[in-house]
């Protein structure tokens, strides 16, 4: 199981051909209290870099981009009732959507944990 990161602070946890996407603890802290999450539709086809979801804090809306190309297979509907899960548990209960990875090669272009930690120093 590998986790990769984008410079925009999304993570993708790779489990076989599926990636679980969310935002990093650094990102949730920077955004502050999340009050609304706009989830993608299951079946939506995304290209790497497409807007996949929107998270809203009290003050502002932030786009969440697709770290890789693929098709949305599942969304975390718990976020509709409890968007704050992204603040309290961004890497587990606060995941946003799952994507079937179209091209595993795209993962190589993302940051590993060390490079991402370096970026947010």
């Amino acid at each position, binding site marked *: 199981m590998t986790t990769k990161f984008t410079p925009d602070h999304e993570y993708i946890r790779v489990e076989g051909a599926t990636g679980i996407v969310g935002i990093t603890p650094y990102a949730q802290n920077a955004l502050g*209290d999340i009050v609304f999450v*706009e989830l993608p539709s299951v079946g939506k086809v995304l290209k790497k870099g497409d807007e996949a979801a*929107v998270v*809203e804090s*009290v*003050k502002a809306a932030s786009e969440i981009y697709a770290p890789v190309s693929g098709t949305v297979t599942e969304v975390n509907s718990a976020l509709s009732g409890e968007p704050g899960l992204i603040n309290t548990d961004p890497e587990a209960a606060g995941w946003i959507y799952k994507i079937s990875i179209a091209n595993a090669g795209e993962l190589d272009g993302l940051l590993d944990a060390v490079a991402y930690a370096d970026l947010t120093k």
Partner: protein
Amino acid sequence: MSEPVEDLKTTPLYAKHVAAGGRMVPFGGYNLPVQYNTGIMGEHKWTREHAGLFDVSHMGPSFLTLNNPSGDADADHAAVAALVEPLVCGDINGLKPGQVRYTLLLNETGGAIDDLMVARSPLFPGSLYIVVNAGTKDNDFDIIAKAAGDKAKLTRADDGALLALQGPEAVAVLDTIVPGVAELGFMTYAPFEWNGTKLIIARSGYTGEDGCEILCDASVAEAMWDALLADERVKPIGLGARDSLRLEAGLPLYGHDLDETVSPTEAGLNFAVSKRRRESADFPGAARILKEFGGELSRIRVGLFVEGAPAREGTEILDASGMVVGKVTSGGFAPSLARAIALGFVPPAHATPGTQLQVSVRGRMQPAQVTATPFVPHRYFRKAKS
């Protein structure tokens, strides 16, 4: 994520904000905390339940004082009021000693150059205490000083610190440090002594809660900040919660809900256009504003309960049939109500509370219902009639 920001001013409390974990952002030309470690939601709720401490030193407090007062209190007040009244729509002449009034500085077409507080000194005949907004203060002060000519002197006091303590426990806290503050009526002010320095304290604010705004010298700002925070009922509150609190209270924010095209009538601020001034039609833009009072109004500010995602500033408002009828001027999430709310402008035909409208958020329609403001009832202090 922290960018170097040039030419930003700091307030006398900058070091205190940083020490308290303040996340500093540029606002109105100043470096100010958008939130502390508590976060906007927690800070907002704390203010509604206890007492929130805000640094509003970026704003523009000032004093306008007659150069040659006669010593006759009422005549001197009338003289200084006569210098300001041609600029604003409020009754300044009618202020009682110590009384604070919300009014608007208007251009010749009745648009708002700024909204501000004007108060009559409780002590000095012919002196007004005037507080304007941060982003507009240089222009406002120019306009007021020009109108005063050689008859009165405008003294800026924005080199000091202005603190706001807001919330149901705010006045009780402040009264332990500055005894006598609890005697102030809502929208009045008085000078107080504290540790040998003078404070100007007004019972007013921008949250819909009871509370005070405290003007002090920069040299005692940190000591005052510490003294207030030493009380466990007080937490520091950033600009983020200041905005969500005022939005819930239905209070307009200059530069968003008010600008040079918006009249007080359109902004739903008829209470700020005094009856005496309307009868004499002697304020800037009177022709337009009086017409609007008579019903010729093309748009009016409304409150909206928004279903789903928050509708932010600039979001289009549509009627039930999908026709664009207006725009959101302030919008966000209301922590006290756990739902999205907005202020915006629509034609009067769509402005009745209960009217079903829509907002277009990221290309999708969401229901929005017109509602009376404030969204959260004001809890200002009212003295019992004796």
